């Protein structure tokens, strides 16, 4: 112990406090980092919504009647009414049936390019970029009584990470 030695006490108090502050800063930043971790479930959420879109347009591997012949306006209406999706800037859904250029786009259109980059996977993106999931299936449909197969592609992007907020906005 350096008790009784003036210089020793000074060194002890200044440096001891400096060490304490250093340790406290370490512990506090550790606690903050741990409790501010975002459990990112957007990819899982996008997969769930992707499956939901297929549930809406597919029945036992067959394309549900009406989708093949619907124009973009009707398809959008059918999508909203039958598939029960809520338009939001936080979600982007793209449904492409066959090679038709009339793909159905729903929700936050600004995510189109973001999803392209995300699915491309070549660039390291910030966590604020949406998470996107794309799935392609071959579905059966009938044209003039003839059985045909068509590619159906569904892309879902989700932007929101959730928000810490004082009240429900």
């Amino acid at each position, binding site marked *: *112990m350096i*008790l*009784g030695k003036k210089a020793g*006490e000074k060194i*002890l*108090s200044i440096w*001891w*406090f400096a060490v*304490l502050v250093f340790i*406290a800063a370490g*512990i*506090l930043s550790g*606690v*903050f980092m741990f*409790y*501010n971790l*975002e*459990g990112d*479930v957007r990819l*899982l*959420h996008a997969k*769930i*919504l992707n499956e*939901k879109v297929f549930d809406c347009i597919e029945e036992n591997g067959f394309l549900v009647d009406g989708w093949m012949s619907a124009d973009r306006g009707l398809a959008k209406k059918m999508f*909203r009414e039958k598939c*029960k*999706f*809520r338009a*939001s800037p*936080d*979600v982007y859904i793209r449904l492409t049936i066959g090679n038709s250029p009339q793909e159905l786009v729903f*929700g936050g259109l600004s995510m189109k390019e973001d999803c392209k980059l995300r699915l491309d996977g070549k660039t390291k993106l910030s966590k604020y970029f949406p998470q996107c999931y794309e799935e392609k299936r071959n579905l059966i449909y009938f044209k003039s009584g003839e059985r045909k197969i068509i590619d159906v592609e569904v892309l879902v992007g989700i932007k*929101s990470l*959730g*928000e*810490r*907020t*004082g*009240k*429900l*906005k």
Partner: protein
Amino acid sequence: MKKRGEITLPFLIFLVLTVIFLVILFYFVYAASSGAFIYEQIYAKKIALAIDSSVPETEIFLDVGSALETAKKSKTEPKFIIDDKKGIVFVSLGSRKGFSYPFFSNYSVSSEIYAKTHNLKLVVKEK
């Protein structure tokens, strides 16, 4: 003249300050680790994903035991608010703020807490 091993006043002040400092530090860490921050986020996301995975006329029972315990520790009423008009789930368990997460299915959703069984019942219906 000071004797070797004698406790001086500055040393005593220093000791008291150190103890106060450590008590405050550990109190903060204990309060932060009550789990409210984490559970609010977990349950908001869990509820939103459960709603989006469901079809109309579904009843979902979620075990919210940990959330209720956390709210009890924080001496606050747990809040599980599901706004089916805006499509937002908001959970507050005693942190100064709560956590909100969106869902995208256009259903009517009602909720009820069963404190005895520690369950949150969600009823998903067609709008």
